[in-house]
């Protein structure tokens, strides 16, 4: 009888855990959208305004070719992701 009750409890616990994980995932998704929205509209937005202001002073280019900078030429430089 005790074993039967333990099994039932375990099954219930598993279902509860699964349900919570489903719910947590949805909440996590909503959280992520909100946080990314804040980052986008505030942080990216501030830089965007500065960028737009700088752009006003930019000259029209005469070529789209530009010098390639920062070619990694050592193994140490190649180990970096940037």
């Amino acid at each position, binding site marked *: 009888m005790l074993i039967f009750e333990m099994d039932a409890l375990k099954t219930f616990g598993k279902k509860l855990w699964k349900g919570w994980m489903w719910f947590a995932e949805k909440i996590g998704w909503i959280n*992520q*959208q909100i946080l*990314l*929205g804040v980052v*986008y*509209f505030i942080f*990216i*937005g501030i*830089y*965007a305004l500065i*960028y737009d202001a700088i752009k006003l002073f930019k000259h029209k*280019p*005469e*070529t*789209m*070719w*530009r*010098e*390639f900078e920062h*070619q*990694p*030429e*050592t*193994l140490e430089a*190649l*180990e*970096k*992701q*940037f």
Partner: protein
Amino acid sequence: MSDNKPTYLLGLACFYHDSSACLLKDGVVIAAAQEERFTRIKHDENFPEYSVNYCLEAADITLDQLSGVCFYEKPLWKFERLLLTYIQEWPRGFFSFLKAMRAWLNKKLWMEHIICKELGKVSGIKNKKGKSVPYSGKIYYVPHHLSHAASTYYPSNFKNATVLTVDGVGERSTSTIALGEEQKLTLKEEIVFPDSLGLLYSAFTYYLGFKVNSGEYKVMGLAPYGTARYTKEIEALIEIFADGSFRLKPEFFAYRYGLKMTSSKFAKHFGRPVRNTDDELTQWHKDMAASLQQVAEELMLNLVRYAHKQYGGKNLCLSGGVALNCVANGRIVREGPFKNVYIFPAAGDAGGSVGATLYVNSIIDPKPKAKSIETIYLGPKFSNQMIESFLQDSGIKYDKIDTAADRAVKVGQLLADNNVIGLFQGRMEFGPRALGNRSIIADPRKPENWKRVNIKIKFREDFRPFAPSVMADKAQDIFDLRGVDSPYMLLTAGTKVKDLPAITHVNSSARIQTVSAEDNKPYYDILSAFNDLTNCPVVINTSLNVRGEPIVWDHIDAFKCFIRTDMDILVLENFIINAEEVDKNFFKTKFELEVFADD
């Protein structure tokens, strides 16, 4: 590291499209494969675990024997470009930002961790808790366009060359010019995102109703059916500078900030909406493809002329996805200022794994450049013994041919008898083209073979042309190649003869593979045997697969492809299987294969 131990470098290209892996031993590429072949997912972008596994098995080594792993781009440069683009496009890039950031936060920002973990899974070494032990060796990150440049310069065998790479976008470059001098390769100039010839082509691919990053070659194949009457309208989308560089006018393109390639202004400019995939292809679409192709060719020629003007030299190496445009390549060879042109056969992103390892190797070992690729047949091969076991175990009737010479004569005779043949032999090709080892071949003199192979065997659009394989020593008599070889099917040229309808496009051109005995003797011998019987040194060559699937990699996939289609003969190394002796329906059920509507 001791001197007599070989240096092994593993190359990886993944997480965008066309994942691949390659293995370099003492500066020579000894194995390379695309992941899609193993997983059967076309353009598979996932970590190339099967390809890595194959590469390690081919060299009979384990992960701990690697001197390093080379990745084909610098992830954080790419992330920086993304952020900068969102700043420039604020606030209309919000939804694209959400989508991109999810991918970056969940995966791409943790690249080192993911690569180590995935390689650990491949190694199969477990800790006490039964979990895979991650790879702990060095990882080198090579800029994307440097990987492209290295993938074409080092295999070219030129002592020095100007290298032009053109694709959609790497980290931020979309086109680059590099200089190769002996073992040293230096990127000199770049055009950066969003001004991209690759993305211009992709935008029209999207507009014409094909899939971006895979349908571009369909647009190229469609172009000869149209007339280039809209070049002015297309040029109105681009600002072309005196030196040949260009800027795409941002109001027409949405890929910087949206989830689509083109803006509503783009459709308004041409007066038609984006074509749905299932809509009919009208003459207007064909004319648009022809116009785009012409504009793209001119832009490519401009870049080549600029590279020559700035850096001179007589050798040009090309790479990047746009270098798979064989019509543009043909014009570069014929009209461009360089005497010699080399194009790496896996010019797209898959080739990045090879380029990354070759560049790292050039720094580890800066001695004068040696031959870094001996063959492009770098994939797995299967022995006659393995194939015979499979045929016997499956109860498949076959004829066994004892010698390679007899096999060539037999296959030549079957071709002359107008059979469509699936040819599976030797090591798998690296790159997007089947070059005789995973191919469907047929007699090009029969006009009905074009439609038959397209519709009953490949199940694909009937407008799509076939490429010819031709004996290299007879190629100049048949095609207007002007003394140049095209061993990787990367050049188009005019046909000089009129009796090859199945491989001649409507504009009298063909995408040619010249086959020499040095490159692929078994295939050359088949062409030679067919020529002895028919006085025709050319065959139709298309990849051994059906529409929507990658090229087959093993004999079992080859047999599955055979029984799903209307092919007459399948050649698996020394074994010949005749469709008349095989109950295809029985085997379809046995292998639980999807039955095509045409069956």
